[in-house]
């Protein structure tokens, strides 16, 4: 149980906007963490603060036991793949790959070369001329091949097609299994990556809503469906995360149910549906009233 990142009372304000509000967090070593939340929730701000690229308003950050700001010893072990990394104008893709080892001590050129082939990235093209997907692919390649002990990926899949995304997940898992390191993945595509995550942090409007093992979060909610009166009787007294009704039917999302409670529900003629990580997070961060399609 060792922490590679320890954040305490972290607050970040941009003028009158509070991006992060009194956040306290621990990230364990050699675990794949998911940093989830809506746009503007504070995920990117958090990662900028953790990598010393921005300064806290108040609170403390310890990465590898030290303050990461202007700390070469710590930052050399960190790789932050941003969603919007800017490259020097004249840079070609191969310049990015050639210069990466100057900054990342653990760089694996062979691995990078393999990834370039898999993602089909054109080595001789200028970074400015790459499509969004190719740009993301380059980011992914650098992030993976850097083998940095602490690697951050901020929405690394933007523009990547489904095949490329799967390649990324597969390669990430395989390389993580062989070269364990701490990975922090911020994403909107929660269901796609939910099986990769061991620890989940949900940030909403600058505050941490969920900070738990992925396994604990999974299965921590159930949707009870059936005749409205029966459903209401069953869920009475429980916290309802979400409720929908259609005619005489209702669908209510509540917390986890014990096997006995599940049996009770089924006996009452109610249907129980699982709640995916993505649905759970959507409910908790209050998406607008959408009509949910199939479960």
């Amino acid at each position, binding site marked *: 149980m*060792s922490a590679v990142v320890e954040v305490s009372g972290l607050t970040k304000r941009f003028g009158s906007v509070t991006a992060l509000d009194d956040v306290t967090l621990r990230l364990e070593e050699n675990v794949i963490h998911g940093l989830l939340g809506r746009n503007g929730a504070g995920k990117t701000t958090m990662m900028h603060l953790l990598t010393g*690229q921005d*300064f806290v308003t108040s609170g403390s950050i310890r990465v*590898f036991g030290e303050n990461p700001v202007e700390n070469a010893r710590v930052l*050399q072990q960190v*790789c*932050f793949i941003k969603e919007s990394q800017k490259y020097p104008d004249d840079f070609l893709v191969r310049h990015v790959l050639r210069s990466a080892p100057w900054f990342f*001590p653990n760089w694996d050129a062979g691995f990078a070369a393999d990834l370039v082939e898999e993602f089909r990235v054109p080595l001789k093209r200028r970074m400015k001329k790459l499509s969004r997907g190719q740009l993301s692919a380059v980011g992914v390649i650098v992030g993976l091949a850097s083998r940095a002990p602490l690697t951050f990926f901020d929405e690394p899949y933007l523009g990547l097609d489904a095949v490329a995304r799967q390649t990324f997940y597969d390669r990430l898992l395989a390389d993580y299994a062989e070269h364990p390191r701490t990975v922090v993945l911020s994403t909107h595509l929660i269901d796609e990556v939910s099986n990769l995550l061991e620890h989940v942090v949900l940030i909403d409007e600058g505050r941490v809503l969920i900070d738990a093992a992925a396994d604990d979060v999974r299965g921590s909610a159930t949707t009870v469906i059936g005749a409205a009166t029966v459903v209401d009787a069953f869920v009475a007294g429980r916290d309802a995360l979400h409720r929908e009704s259609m005619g005489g039917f209702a669908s209510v999302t509540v917390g986890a149910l014990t096997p006995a409670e599940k049996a009770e529900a089924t006996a009452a003629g109610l249907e129980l549906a699982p709640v995916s990580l993505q649905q759970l997070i959507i409910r908790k961060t209050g998406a607008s009233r959408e009509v949910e399609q199939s479960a």
Partner: protein
Amino acid sequence: MTTVTAPTVTPALGNRILAVVRLHLTNRWTVIYLPWLIMLAILALNVAIWAIVLSAAAPENREEVRQNLGYSGAASYMFVYMIVIAVQAISVTFRFAQGYSVTRRDYYLGTSVAFVGFSVMFAVGLSILAAIEEATDGWGLGGKLFTSTVFGEGDGLARAFVFLVLALFFFFVGAAVAAIWVRWRAFGLTAFFVGLAFLLVGFGALIALTDSWVAVGEWFVATGFLGVYAWSLVPTAIAALTGYLVLRRATPQG
């Protein structure tokens, strides 16, 4: 509940600085090719103008005209352009370097080393061009671009020193301007220049009010060309320090 600490093997400071220098060198068009192209274009332009002026003058006036061609200030464009190079180099690579886990201090040190290197390169290049200019007696037209009296009346070595010192000055002023731009963007830049203008005017007013122009003039004469240029290293150092202090709290998001 323990805390993991980073492996103690950190690449040496020298390596980290070298990484930043190499980063600047990958921008070859911006920092090397384009500036030289501009310089050569300026040279070509000046040669053309001299040729036109000379041929326009009546033959009996030609010698007199030749003598007066000594003050082409066109080379100053080259030096002012170094501010542009510096600003481009920093505004383009700072974000990238931040994204690649480089500390601001390592970045500024590496950039400073790179700028000193560029200054040396330009000083050497300009000295070579000056030597050619002397050897061809002003490109065959008596023109003085690189051997203009702006750069002093000393020999080649003295002139090379002047080139170096001027390049350093403009590069590091550029660094300070770039730092202000990166940290405070357009607003900061405007505020800086307005403030600078006030400062210079105020300084000038101070000298005028205390009737010190004569004293200033005497100082220039007493110190001599080389001396004055050597003194410019002081504002260069101030600019370099300012650049660092400003960049220290800059963030890569505009």
